[in-house]
Structure formats: C-alpha cells, structure tokens
C-alpha cells in the first residue's frame, strides 16, 4: 500500500518536473530569438521542411474533408428544404473548428514527429554536444529556427486547408448536388464574419502550431539517446501534440464562441 502511494507520488512529481523542464527550455529558446532574426536563411530552411513538405497532405486532406462535409450537410439539410445553406455549414465548420484542428493533427504527425526524430538523432550522435564544444549555442542554431518556422507555417497551412476545403465543398455542392454557384458564395458571405470566424480560426492555428513545435522540439531534446528512446519520444510527440491540440481547441472555443 505504502509502495503504491510512493509510486503515485513519484509519477506526479515526474510530470511536474517535465513540465518545469519544458517551460525552462521554451524560455531559453525565446531568449535566443532576437539573435536568430539576423539569420533568416536558417528559418527558411526549416520552413521548407515543416511547411512545404507538409503542404501536399494538407491539400489532399482539406479537399476530402470539405467534400465530405458538403455531402453530410446536404443529407441533413435537404429534409428541411435548406440545402442552399450547405456553404454556410461547410465554411463555418472549417473555419471555426476542423481547419485548425485537422491541420494541427496532421502537422503533429507529419512535421512534429520528424522534428523529434531529427533532434533526437542529433542528440544521440552527440551533434548537440559537439556544437557546444565549438561554442555554438544549439538552442539558437537548432531549436529556435524550428520553433519559429512551425509558428509561421501553421497559420499558412491552415489557410490553405480551409480554402481547399471550401473549394472541395463547392465541387460537391455545385457540381454534385446542384446548388447554384452564386447561392453557394453569397450565403457564405452572409453568415461568415471576417473577425469572429476567420480570424479566430487563425488565432487557433497559431496557438496550435506553437504548442506542437514546442512539444516536438522538447521531446527530441529530452529523448533517451537510444534507438528505443527515440521511438518512444517520437510517439510521445504525436500523442501529446494531438491531445494538446484537441484540449486547447475546446478551451479556445469556449473563450471565443462560448457566449454565442
């Protein structure tokens, strides 16, 4: 019994210790950011690996999500003779929730895991220690560009995801189901507010991007430098990143749209 209690206490303390480590780690990265801004080539290279290489999966997923949303919206709305409102449902769902959330999940799986694996391997092959030996701060040279690139890439990816989703919904609604083209766009314009819907979605995506990259980089930096530890760290990135996205999404939705 006492052993059990001790174990629980240890676990809880370990969780808080990790959280503290992660926060200190983030603080160290943020401190190096001003110096990083003088070297944009590092950021561009990371934007390529986090942003450009995630673009394809975002495009494909966005198109299919938009098409499915339009089909399901039609299935329900046609009973009420309100099938013209498909666009409102597709656009609002994508902007407020699915756009940032699915982009976040895909981003955690595609870019987040790659970041963890890359940094974890750097650690296990002692590249990070090597840099310190050469008086290069790995925080500034390795971590900070990745965090900043993820932070910049997520809103762009989300915008692409939503836009492609809206076009996918358009394809189904106009060419599949037979809604008039003008009705599709004008009803969306009537209901969708630039600030409440689009901008709040973008704010969500920025928050998600920041949290995912933070988790990914920290897990890589903190990984046990063995092949097994690296695998565990990558798994943890995807699991924790996805859970963080979903949990934060509820929190942000409650703050942004809770009073409607």
């Amino acid at each position, binding site marked *: 019994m006492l052993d059990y209690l001790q174990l629980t206490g240890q676990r809880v303390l370990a969780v808080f210790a990790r959280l503290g480590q992660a926060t200190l780690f983030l603080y160290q990265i943020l401190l190096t950011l001003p110096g990083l801004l003088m070297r944009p080539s590092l950021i*561009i290279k990371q934007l390529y690996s986090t942003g*450009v290489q995630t673009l394809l999966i975002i495009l494909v997923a966005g198109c299919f999500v938009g098409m499915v949303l339009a089909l399901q919206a039609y299935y329900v709305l046609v009973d009420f*003779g309100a099938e013209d409102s498909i666009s409102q449902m597709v656009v609002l769902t994508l*902007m407020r929730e699915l756009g940032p959330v699915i982009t976040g999940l895909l981003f955690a799986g595609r870019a987040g895991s790659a970041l963890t694996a890359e940094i974890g391997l750097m650690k296990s092959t002692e590249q990070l220690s090597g840099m310190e030996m050469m008086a290069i701060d790995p925080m500034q040279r390795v971590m900070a560009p990745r965090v900043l690139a993820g932070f910049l890439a997520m809103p*762009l990816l989300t*915008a692409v995801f*939503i836009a492609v989703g809206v076009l996918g919904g358009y394809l189904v609604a106009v060419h599949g189901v037979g809604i008039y083209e003008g009705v599709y766009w004008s009803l969306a314009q009537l209901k969708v507010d630039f600030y409440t819907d689009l901008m709040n979605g973008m704010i969500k995506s920025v928050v998600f991007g920041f949290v995912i990259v933070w988790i990914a980089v920290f897990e890589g930096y903190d990984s046990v430098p063995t092949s097994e530890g690296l695998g565990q760290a990558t798994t943890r990135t995807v699991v924790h990143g996805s859970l963080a996205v979903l949990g934060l999404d509820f929190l942000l939705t409650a703050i942004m749209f809770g009073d409607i």
Partner: protein
Amino acid sequence: MNSRTIEIAVGVFVALGLAAFFMLAMKVSNLISYESETGYQISARFDNIGGLRERSPVAVAGVRIGKVSSIVYDNETYEAVVVMEIEPQYNRFPIDTSAGILTAGLLGEQYVGLEPGAEEEFLKTNSVITVTQSAIVLEEVIGQFLYSKADEKE
C-alpha cells in the same frame, strides 16, 4: 538540395498560404460588405423586431438592397429604432414606403422588407419610414387564435 530551390519552394508556399487567406477573406467572409459602407441610411420604428439582428438583410421584392446597420431601443417611445443602410444605386423609394419585418421561409432568418409607396418625393439620408409592420411573434399569433376560438364557443 540546392538552397536556391528551397528558397523558391518556401516562397511559393508562403504566397500560396497568403493567397488562400485572401481568397477566404474576400470570397467567403463578409469583409467586402464592411468596406462598402457607402450607402445612405434610413431608419424605421417598430413595436417589436422579433429576431432581427444587425447585418440582417433589407430586401425589396425579394431582392437584397442593403442591410440593418444598427438596432437601438428608444427609451421614450418604447419602440425599437432600426437603422438600415441602403446601397446608393437604390435611391428611388417614395416617402410613404412601408417597412415590415418578414421571415424567409417558415423558420428562416428574419429580414426587413420594404414596400414602395406612391408619393413623388423620395427617401433621403436619415429619412424615417413611418408606416411599419412589426415582426409576427408566433406565440402571440397562437394566443390570439386560442382566444378567438374560446370566444366562438361562448
């Protein structure tokens, strides 16, 4: 990979993201209608506006010609003052035009419907429409119906 190729790819990616954002802002959201606030304003007083809200449409003969820009409660007359913004090209409404709050479909959104009158003078900026028809509140209608039924029996 060549650093020039990477730079081009990132440039294309950023441009694509921004283009997607502008497409959403212009084509799908109401940002355009924020900008086109150049119409002229007329107001109308209603006893009851039902579910009318700001940015609800204003229509004549079913065609959208403007939107509700603000709704204020007048503390003196106990009425709702609805200020509407009409697009400038629709400037030929006689001064005895009447306004009613109607519902699109049975359960749809409420909007202001204007019914042109017959006078020769036209409504100008800040004109007030005097002939108005309040929103039909379903509970009131059902209540009246029940009362009239009860009266018939007696």
